C-alpha cells in the first residue's frame, strides 16, 4: 500500500477556533450568568497618594438591590497580599500589597471598597453612597525625583525597590581610548496593553469548593497563587479561562479583583461576577514599559562595537505585581542584540511611584532593549557616515558562527541575519528609496523621506527552569501536554498552554495530525481549565509552540511507542519488525501489513489481545522543560514621510522579513506579525499613558489612549527566511512578540533619519505631529522648518 501523506505542519490551515468567534457563540467570561449570581462593583481611589482616614459603607448597604458592601478593613484579616513571584535581588523591597487598600492608597484607581448587588446598575449606583475620607499625601510621579533623598515616600522602606547588575568583559578597557563613544538617553513611555476584552471574573462557591472563571492568560498560575494568597486548599480551587479576548501580557497577572471575587463568594456563599469598564481597566490593569534608558556605546573608527553600557530606571508603579521586577531583566540579555562586542554592563534600578503598577506587556523588556540598541546603532551609523545596514553587518554574528555565546551569556543556537536582511532590502527597494531621499533632501523638500532599520532578535520560548531559578524567578518554565486516542480513533489533546487568540486549537491539531497520522479534523484541543488540563505554565513570552508544542510532540511520541507494542500483537510480529511510515505502523519490508492509530486505538479499547505488561489505554503525558531559549530574528525596514511643516508622519512602506524557524501555520504566523507590527507602531506614533501633576491618569479611555485604527496603518509587506531552531524537535522559535519588538525602533529610526539633515537626532515617543514639529523647531530655531516649495498633499496627516 502506498499512501502519499501530506504534511500538516506548514499548511495555511484556516482556524478551528473561528467557527464560534464569527457567529457570536463565544464563551467570554462576561457572558456567564449563574443562578443567584450577584454583581460586584469596586470603588477606587481618586487620589494618587493618600491616607484613608475612614470608609463608611453603611448607606450603600441600605441602597436598593444591594446585598453587601465592604471596606478594606472588613478584609484586613483574610485578604493577604497580592503576590510577586520574581524577587530579583536578595535585598529587594517588596511591600505588602493588600487587594483592597486598608489605610493608604498609592495610585489613583486602587480599590478602597466593594459593593455586591443584584445587578451591575444597582452595584454602580451604590458606589456613590460610600463615604471615604482621605488625607492627601504628595504624589511621586517622576522616577529620577523619586530617588532624591528628600522625595516623599511611596512606601516606608523608600522608593527604590532594587538594583540589579550584570557585567561581562572589561568595560573600562572597551571605553578607554575608544575612537567613538556615543551616549544617549531614551524614554520608553508608559503604555496600556489594551486587550479588546476587558477583564471579567465570575466566582462560584459550592460548599468549600470554588470555581473561578477569569479572563486570564494564566489559569494554572492563578490557581496556585489564589491558594497561596487566600489559604484555600489548591485542591478545592478550579480556575477556568474560557474564551479570552487577547492579553498581550495584561492578563498575565494575579489581580486584586480575582482575589476579592473569591473572598466575596466565600463570604456571601453565592456566585459573584465582576466585569470592568474600559475606563476602569485603564487605571487598574497593569501598564507596560515606562523606563528611562541611558545607553553608551564604544566603537572603533570603522564602527566595530567594543563595549556597551546600559543604565536603566524602571518604573514599578506603586507595587510589585506578579513579575514586575523581572520585566526589565528580560531585556538585560537583549541589549547586545545580534552584535558582537568585548564588554557589556547592565544596571537596572526599579523605582516606586504613585502610579498604576507596571508588568508584562507584549515583548516585556525585549522591545525596550531592542529599541535602545537599534536607535543608537542608527545614530552611530550617522555619526560615522556609514549606511546603517552596513554598520550592522560589520557587527552582527555571521551565520557560520552559530551556535554563538553572546556577551550577555546566552547561546544563540541559530540564525541568518545576512539572508533576512538581503531579502528585506530587496523587497523594500532600499537603494531606490535612498536615492529618492537624497533627491528630496537636495531639493529641500518640505516632506522628507526617512528610512528606518531594525535588525532585531529576541529570546523566546520562556523558559529553561534552571535559568529562571538562577534569576530568582519563583516558578519553572516547562509545559505539559496529554494526548488521548479515543476508541474511535479521534484524538483529544490537552495542553497546559492557555490560548487567548493565538490559535492553539488549530496549530496543535496540525502537529498531532503529523505525529499520529490522523486527519486534522479528528483532533480536538482542550485547554484553559485546571480540571481538564491540570498541569500547565500557560501562555506568555512566545512560549506556547516552542515549549507547549514540544510537549505535545513528546506525548505523541510516547503514544506512538505504545501503539507499536499493540500493533505488534495485532499483526503477530515483534515490535522491532515494525516501522512508522506514512502515519501508521507497518511491517518492515511488507508495508501492506500495517495498522493505523485508529485501528490500534479500538484494539486497545477492546483489550482482547493486549501484549504482556501493556495497559489497555492509548494515551500519554509529557512535560517538557527546554534546555535553551529560542532566538527568532529578522530585519524590518520602514519608509516614513515626515511633513516638516506640520510634523505629520506617514508610513509609506513597511517591510518585515522574519525568521521564526519552522512555521507550523503560515496564516497564523502572518497574523501574529501583522498585529505585532501594529502594536509597535502604536508605541512609536500614538500611545502613551499620561498622568497629570496630581497623579491622575488622563488617558483613561480609548478616546484619549489612542490605539491605532485601520485608517492609521499601512499594509505591510512581510516575508520569511527559515533557519530552524536546533533546540526543539519542531525547529520552531516563536512569533508572538517579534513584530512588536522590531517595529517601534524601525519607525522612530525612519522619522529621525528623515529629519537628520535638519539637525534632529531624536524625537521622544509617541512621535505625534506636535512632538515631531517641536523637535524640528528646537533643532533649527534660527532657520525654522526646511525651506522649499510648499506641498499640499504629500505629507498626509494621521
Amino acid at each position, binding site marked *: 500500500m502506498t499512501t502519499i501523506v501530506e504534511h500538516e505542519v506548514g499548511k495555511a490551515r484556516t482556524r478551528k477556533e473561528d467557527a464560534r*468567534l*464569527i457567529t457570536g457563540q463565544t464563551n467570554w467570561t462576561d457572558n456567564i450568568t449563574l443562578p443567584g449570581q450577584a454583581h460586584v462593583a469596586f470603588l477606587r481611589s481618586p487620589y494618587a497618594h493618600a491616607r484613608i482616614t475612614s470608609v463608611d459603607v453603611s448607606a450603600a448597604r441600605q441602597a436598593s438591590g444591594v446585598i453587601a458592601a465592604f471596606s478594606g478593613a472588613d478584609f484586613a484579616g483574610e485578604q493577604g497580599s497580592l503576590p510577586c513571584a520574581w524577587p530579583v535581588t536578595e535585598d529587594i523591597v517588596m511591600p505588602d500589597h493588600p487587594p483592597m487598600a486598608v489605610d493608604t492608597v498609592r495610585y489613583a484607581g486602587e480599590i478602597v471598597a466593594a459593593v455586591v448587588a443584584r445587578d451591575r*446598575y444597582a452595584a454602580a449606583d451604590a458606589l456613590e453612597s460610600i463615604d471615604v475620607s482621605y488625607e492627601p499625601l504628595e504624589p511621586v510621579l517622576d522616577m529620577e525625583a523619586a530617588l532624591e533623598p528628600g522625595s516623599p515616600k511611596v512606601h516606608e522602606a523608600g522608593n527604590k525597590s532594587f538594583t540589579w547588575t550584570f557585567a561581562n568583559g572589561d568595560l573600562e578597557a572597551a571605553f578607554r581610548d575608544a575612537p567613538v563613544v556615543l551616549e544617549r538617553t531614551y524614554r520608553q513611555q508608559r503604555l496600556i496593553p489594551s*486587550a479588546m476584552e476587558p477583564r471579567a471574573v465570575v466566582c462560584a462557591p459550592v460548599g468549600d469548593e470554588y470555581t473561578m472563571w477569569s479572563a486570564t492568560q494564566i489559569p494554572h498560575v492563578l490557581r496556585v497563587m489564589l491558594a497561596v494568597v487566600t489559604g484555600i486548599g489548591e485542591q478545592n480551587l478550579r480556575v477556568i479561562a474560557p474564551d479570552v479576548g487577547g492579553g498581550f501580557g495584561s492578563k498575565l497577572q494575579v489581580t486584586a479583583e480575582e482575589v476579592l471575587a473569591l473572598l466575596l463568594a466565600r463570604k456571601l456563599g453565592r456566585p459573584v461576577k465582576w466585569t470592568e469598564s474600559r475606563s476602569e481597566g485603564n487605571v487598574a490593569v497593569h501598564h507596560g514599559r515606562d523606563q528611562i534608558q541611558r545607553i553608551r556605546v564604544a566603537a572603533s573608527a570603522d564602527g566595530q562595537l567594543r563595549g556597551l553600557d546600559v543604565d536603566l530606571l524602571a518604573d514599578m508603579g506603586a507595587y510589585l505585581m506578579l513579575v514586575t521586577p523581572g520585566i526589565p531583566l528580560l531585556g538585560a540579555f537583549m541589549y547586545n542584540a545580534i552584535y558582537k562586542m568585548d564588554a557589556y554592563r547592565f544596571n537596572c534600578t526599579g523605582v516606586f511611584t504613585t502610579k498604576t503598577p507596571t508588568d508584562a506587556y507584549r515583548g516585556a523588556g525585549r522591545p525596550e532593549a531592542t529599541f535602545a540598541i537599534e536607535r543608537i546603532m542608527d545614530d552611530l551609523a550617522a555619526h560615522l557616515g556609514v549606511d546603517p545596514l552596513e554598520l550592522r553587518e560589520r557587527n552582527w554574528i555571521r551565520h557560520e558562527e552559530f551556535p554563538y555565546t553572546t556577551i550577555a551569556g546566552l547561546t544563540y543556537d541559530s540564525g541568518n541575519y545576512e539572508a*533576512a536582511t538581503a531579502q528585506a532590502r530587496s523587497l523594500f527597494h532600499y537603494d531606490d528609496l535612498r536615492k529618492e531621499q537624497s533627491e528630496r533632501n537636495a531639493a529641500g523638500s518640505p516632506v522628507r523621506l526617512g528610512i528606518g532599520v531594525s535588525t532585531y532578535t529576541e529570546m523566546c520560548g520562556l523558559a529553561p527552569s534552571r535559568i529562571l531559578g538562577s534569576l530568582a524567578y519563583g516558578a519553572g518554565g516547562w509545559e505539559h501536554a496529554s494526548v488521548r486516542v479515543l476508541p474511535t480513533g479521534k484524538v483529544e489533546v490537552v495542553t497546559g498552554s492557555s490560548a487567548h*487568540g493565538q490559535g492553539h486549537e488549530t496549530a496543535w491539531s496540525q502537529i498531532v495530525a503529523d505525529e499520529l497520522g490522523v486527519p486534522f479534523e479528528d483532533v480536538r484541543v482542550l485547554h484553559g481549565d485546571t480540571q481538564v488540563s491540570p498541569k500547565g505554565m500557560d501562555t506568555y513570552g512566545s512560549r506556547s509552540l516552542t515549549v507547549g508544542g514540544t510537549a505535545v510532540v513528546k506525548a505523541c511520541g510516547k503514544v506512538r511507542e505504545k501503539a507499536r507494542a499493540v500493533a505488534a500483537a495485532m499483526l503477530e510480529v515483534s515490535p522491532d519488525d515494525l516501522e512508522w511510515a506514512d502515519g501508521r505502523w507497518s511491517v518492515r519490508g511488507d508495508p501492506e501489513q500495517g495498522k493505523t492509530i485508529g485501528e490500534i486505538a479500538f484494539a486497545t479499547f477492546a483489550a482482547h489481545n493486549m501484549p504482556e505488561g501493556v495497559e489497555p489505554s492509548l494515551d500519554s503525558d509529557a512535560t517538557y522543560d527546554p534546555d535553551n531559549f529560542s532566538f527568532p530574528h529578522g530585519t524590518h525596514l520602514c519608509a516614513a514621510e515626515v511633513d516638516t511643516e506640520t510634523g505629520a508622519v506617514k508610513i509609506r512602506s513597511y517591510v518585515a522579513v522574519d525568521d521564526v524557524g519552522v512555521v507550523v501555520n503560515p496564516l497564523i504566523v502572518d497574523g501574529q506579525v501583522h498585529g505585532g507590527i501594529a502594536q509597535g507602531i502604536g508605541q512609536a506614533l500614538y500611545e502613551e499613558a499620561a498622568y497629570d501633576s496630581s497623579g491622575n491618569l488622563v488617558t483613561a*479611555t480609548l478616546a484619549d489612549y489612542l490605539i491605532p485604527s485601520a485608517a492609521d496603518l499601512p*499594509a505591510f*509587506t512581510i516575508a520569511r527566511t527559515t533557519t530552524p531552531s536546533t533546540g526543539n524537535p519542531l525547529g520552531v522559535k516563536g512569533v508572538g512578540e517579534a*513584530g512588536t519588538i522590531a517595529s517601534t525602533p524601525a519607525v522612530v529610526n525612519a522619522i529621525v533619519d528623515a529629519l537628520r539633515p535638519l539637525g534632529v537626532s531624536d524625537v521622544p515617543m509617541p512621535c505625534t505631529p506636535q512632538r515631531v514639529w517641536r523637535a524640528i523647531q528646537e533643532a533649527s530655531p534660527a532657520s525654522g522648518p526646511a525651506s522649499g516649495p510648499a506641498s499640499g498633499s504629500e505629507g498626509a496627516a494621521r
Partner: protein
Amino acid sequence: MKITVNIDGVRYEDDVEPRLLLVHYLRERAGRTGTPIGCDTTNCGACTVLMNGVSVKSCSVLTVQADGAEITTIQGLADGELHPLQRAFHEEHALQCGYCTPGMIMAAVDLLRDNPHPTEEQVRDGLEGNLCRCTGYQNIVRAVMRAAGDGEHAQAATGERAGVSA
C-alpha cells in the same frame, strides 16, 4: 418603559429602565451575548449591531430608542449558511482573539451595503470606528475586499505575502 423590539427575528416585549443601554438589554435580558462590550466611550465598536439595517454602536443607544426597531446582531447574520463576510473573515484569518469580530463584521456589512466595491482606503476609513488589537487590520481589510467579490484585488492591494527562502 414598555418597548417592543425585534432581535434577530424574535419579537421581545419588555419593560425597561429608561437608562438601560441597548447592549446591556441584548446581553443580559435577551441573552444575545454574541455582541460584546469593549469600552464605555463608544470608541471601540465591538458592540456594533444593525438597527433597521444601519450599523450602530449598541452601547450608545438606549433600549427605549430601539422601540419598534429591527435589530440584527452577529448571531442573526447567518441565514442557514455563513454570511459572505463571516466566511471571508474565516478564510482570510481576519480575527485572532475574536473579541472585536462581531462588531467588525456588522460594521463591514453596513460598509458594503453603502459601497459594494470599496477601495482599500475606503475600507480602512470605513472601519475606523472599530478597533482591533490583534490583527493590525491587514487581514480584516483583505476579508472585506474578498467579501466584496474581488479577492484578487484584495491580495494586491493589501500588502504582499512574499515567498519563503533560505
